[in-house]
């Protein structure tokens, strides 16, 4: 048994990396779940290759899973890893720039043969040529040992190799003092029909654990005590799943059946997958022939009274532009979820970016205002999907909800809400028997017209995409009516500001620098601002883009400098300048398909404050 001592840590970032077929996603999730059960706060990010299953051992076939755990508040999956598990040479190659100096690197030495190095485009052996100087490298013969453990298992060679991720997991469990029970239980359930496989995996897991305990290379192991987390029942949730569930919750609350018209596209497809599982809620899911059909089928369903939703990513949003205009003109509710990815065009489909904001706000012909919102963490995708649905049906106009690949695929522990605790949703459905109703009549507060559902006697009426008379909804070419309607539609959207929360800041109430962000950069910005120590700084994060919270200008006024940080060339900055010409906005942008790192942010903030 090793004589290693146990150290206490605040937080740690661990990256599991291997071939697409090596089961790194599963390995990472198991570590995450176990840590969550121990009460750590955490955030994760999987990092799939663009290819489905590239040839073994190549760099473009590397699949990774990063998890950040702590006994402090964790807002991001972490910039760079403290521990890297590299199942082969390619996994090391790809992750070399994403690990901290002095990090611990566990490599499966069996996959660093000459041909492995070649496939990974290493000119010489990184384990020997000094590349890893300064790191704490643990060379474990994981493949050999796994084979050894299972030599009498009766499993075929391929199945044996599939267990080697458990060996790695075992090592890491020992390093961080985690119990094995959770994973053992998981394996029993997963392979309930195949107990041999379950047992083999468990055996290898334990072997890995013991291996780590035994060998002397690991100087110490670590404990990360539970975080101070609000009491309650928790689960892990991925962003796309949270979006799906938020929509389902809104359906239940509003009494309107969910209707999804969608077309698969990375990284939004998982919302479609997730919703497809819950037909028992009466949800109707149509995988349409394309994005245009997806939104149009949803619009048809909205006309008939459903909570209509369409989900997509950038290029799909572009295709939906025309139809969004129709929903705006017809004043029908519709939730459009756009999970942003790298652009333009097909761009970097598996990478994250925030460059669809301006398309969401402006990308349609004519004056066609849509409500635009953005979620900021994997779990609050639930809240904002719920709110998008609520606002859309209550205000009878489309809402575009922006998330991104980083949020959609990321996961974090989530305190499970109670349906009773969620706000009511009251769609303005026209009850039978009302006299003197006009199709485009609207209430003063929300300016929403009433929803007169086909099938209700007495309300037969026609809507459409031509300009409508302010009251009757008949086609109208009257110039003054057009101006009135154009302004009304804009105002109706602006009115939503009366129904959303005010902007809150984190940090100093007033001061030198306000860091402004929106959407998926929440975690990075919050972490960076919190690390700015005594600086006179605050962070304001926007979830409501159009309209903006009512107190936005007032908040901006309290700081001498404002920097807007975005993963694009400055789209929110331009948008804000258009609305608040009196305010000076600096900008900080990154457009590499990657999130901000804490370091680059704090460096920038300090630079600005010092200026």
């Amino acid at each position, binding site marked *: 048994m090793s004589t290693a001592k146990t150290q206490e840590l605040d937080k740690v970032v661990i990256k599991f990396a291997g071939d697409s077929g090596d089961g790194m996603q599963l390995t990472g999730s198991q570590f995450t779940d176990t840590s969550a059960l121990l009460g750590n706060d955490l955030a994760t990010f999987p990092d799939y290759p663009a290819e489905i299953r590239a040839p073994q051992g190549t760099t473009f076939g590397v699949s990774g899973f990063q998890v950040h755990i702590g006994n402090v508040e964790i807002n991001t999956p972490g910039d760079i890893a403290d521990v890297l598990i590299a199942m082969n040479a390619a996994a090391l190659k790809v992750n070399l720039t994403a690990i901290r100096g002095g990090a611990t690197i566990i490599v499966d030495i069996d996959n660093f043969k000459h041909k492995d190095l070649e496939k990974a485009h290493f000119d010489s052996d990184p384990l020997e040529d000094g590349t890893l100087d300064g790191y704490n490298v643990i060379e474990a013969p994981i493949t050999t040992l796994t084979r050894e453990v299972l030599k009498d298992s009766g499993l075929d060679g391929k199945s044996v190799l599939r267990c080697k991720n458990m060996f790695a997991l075992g090592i890491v469990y020992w390093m961080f003092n985690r119990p094995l029970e959770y994973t053992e239980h998981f394996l029993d359930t997963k392979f309930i029909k195949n107990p041999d496989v379950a047992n083999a995996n468990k055996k290898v897991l334990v072997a890995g654990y013991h291996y780590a305990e035994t060998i002397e290379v690991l100087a110490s192991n670590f404990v990360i005590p539970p975080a101070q987390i609000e009491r309650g029942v928790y689960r892990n949730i991925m962003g796309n799943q949270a979006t799906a569930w938020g929509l389902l919750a809104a359906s239940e609350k509003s009494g309107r059946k969910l209707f999804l018209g969608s077309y698969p596209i990375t990284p939004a497809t998982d919302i479609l997958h997730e919703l497809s599982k819950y037909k028992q809620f009466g949800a109707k899911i149509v995988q349409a*022939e394309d994005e245009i059909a997806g939104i149009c089928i949803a619009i048809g369903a909205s006309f008939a009274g459903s909570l209509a939703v369409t989900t997509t990513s950038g290029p799909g949003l572009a295709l939906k532009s025309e139809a969004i205009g129709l929903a705006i003109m017809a004043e029908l509710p519709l939730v459009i979820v756009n999970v942003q990815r790298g652009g333009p065009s097909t761009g970097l489909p598996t990478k994250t970016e925030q460059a669809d904001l301006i398309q969401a706000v402006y990308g349609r012909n004519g004056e066609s205002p849509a409500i635009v919102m953005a979620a900021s963490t994997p779990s609050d995708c639930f809240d904002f999907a719920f709110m998008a649905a609520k606002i859309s049906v209550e205000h009878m106009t489309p809402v575009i909800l922006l998330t991104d690949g980083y949020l959609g695929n990321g996961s974090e522990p989530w305190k499970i809400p109670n349906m009773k605790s969620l706000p009511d949703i009251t769609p303005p459905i026209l009850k039978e028997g009302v006299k003197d109703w006009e199709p485009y009549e609207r209430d003063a507060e929300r300016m929403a017209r009433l929803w007169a559902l086909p099938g209700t006697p007495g309300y037969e009426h026609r809507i459409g995409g031509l300009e409508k008379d302010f009251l009757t909804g008949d086609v109208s070419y009257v110039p003054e009516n057009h101006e009135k309607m154009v302004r009304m539609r804009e105002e109706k959207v602006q009115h939503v500001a009366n129904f959303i929360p005010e902007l809150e800041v984190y940090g100093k109430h007033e001061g030198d620098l306000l860091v402004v962000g929106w959407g998926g950069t929440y975690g990075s910005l919050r972490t960076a601002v919190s690390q700015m120590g005594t600086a006179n700084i605050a962070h304001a994060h926007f979830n409501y883009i159009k309209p903006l919270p009512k107190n936005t200008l007032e908040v901006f006024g309290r700081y001498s400098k404002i920097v807007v940080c975005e993963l694009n060339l400055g789209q929110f900055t331009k948008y804000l300048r258009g609305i608040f010409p009196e305010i000076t906005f600096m900008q900080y942008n990154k457009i590499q398909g990657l999130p901000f790192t804490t370091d680059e942010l704090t460096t920038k903030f300090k630079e600005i404050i010092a200026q």
Partner: protein
Amino acid sequence: MENQAQVYSHKDFESDQENRWCPGCGDKAVLNALHRALPLLDHKKEDYVFISGIGCSSRFPYYMNTYGFHTIHGRAAAISTGTKLANPKLSVWEVTGDGDALAIGGNHFIQTLRRNVDINILLFNNEIYGLTKGQFSPTSEKGTVTKSSPHGTIDRPFYPGELAIGCRATFFARVVDVLPKKMTDVFVQADSHRGASLVEILQNCVIFNDKVFANITDKEVRDDAMLWVEHGKPMLFGTDLKKGLILNGLKLEIAEIGKNGITEKDILVHDAHCDDNTLHNMLASLKRPEFPVVFGVIRDVVEPTFDHGVLSQIEEVTKASTINSMDELLVSGETWEIK
């Protein structure tokens, strides 16, 4: 669909909107035929929904005192699909033109037929874009001279019936604006078919494509140019119905009753309900001048509809499901408690 107590007259379906089609436009005849068909059907007035794209013909919903949605160009099929699925008790009628359905809307058209969504599709085929003032459409015969084809078109046309059968459509019928009574009949049959019912309406555009169907509809040629099929009846045409179709190998031929010993018994009897669509396809593709053009219900077969499939899957899943509320879903699977 559901039994109704009320008896409607065509007036119940006329809206108060001023009709804006050109004087003499074939669309008006279709409108009248439909005003007269609806009272013969078994739906409540509030359950009718007319959904159109953009085009002259797509103004149709404004003239129907029912629920209506004049949407965007080419998308009526998709929007109709959504409306029908969301509320399957509605009687959904898609109104579309040859440009709307077969140019920009081509994809939704074929997918809707493929899925067999239970809607009625009225395809106003005037072989021209009317609303944009006269360009050729995907159904314009090759060589058609229009504003955008001053030297004649190069495109080969679509034949809607053939295309529909290429999608395994379950219902295809053809009518023409000059015979309103027949239109009404066919509309009634389209309604009673469960699944996507495609009715191609040959419609004259007096302004931009006048007389394009004159070689079929002119009084002098009509008898020889039109063959109206009816399920279970021999396929006869011509003055006094003295001509008919017979099969020679894989080809249709015209036979004259009384000549070469041909009697009515030799004439093919129309079977609109047979699954195999080979003969339907042959009928749909007959062209002037060698053959008469076939009208009436050419194909009408029963297959599961998409909307019914969606509903029954929901029922099955619901029966089998152990998670039946959001609160149950939220706590399902792996959770842990922080105390």
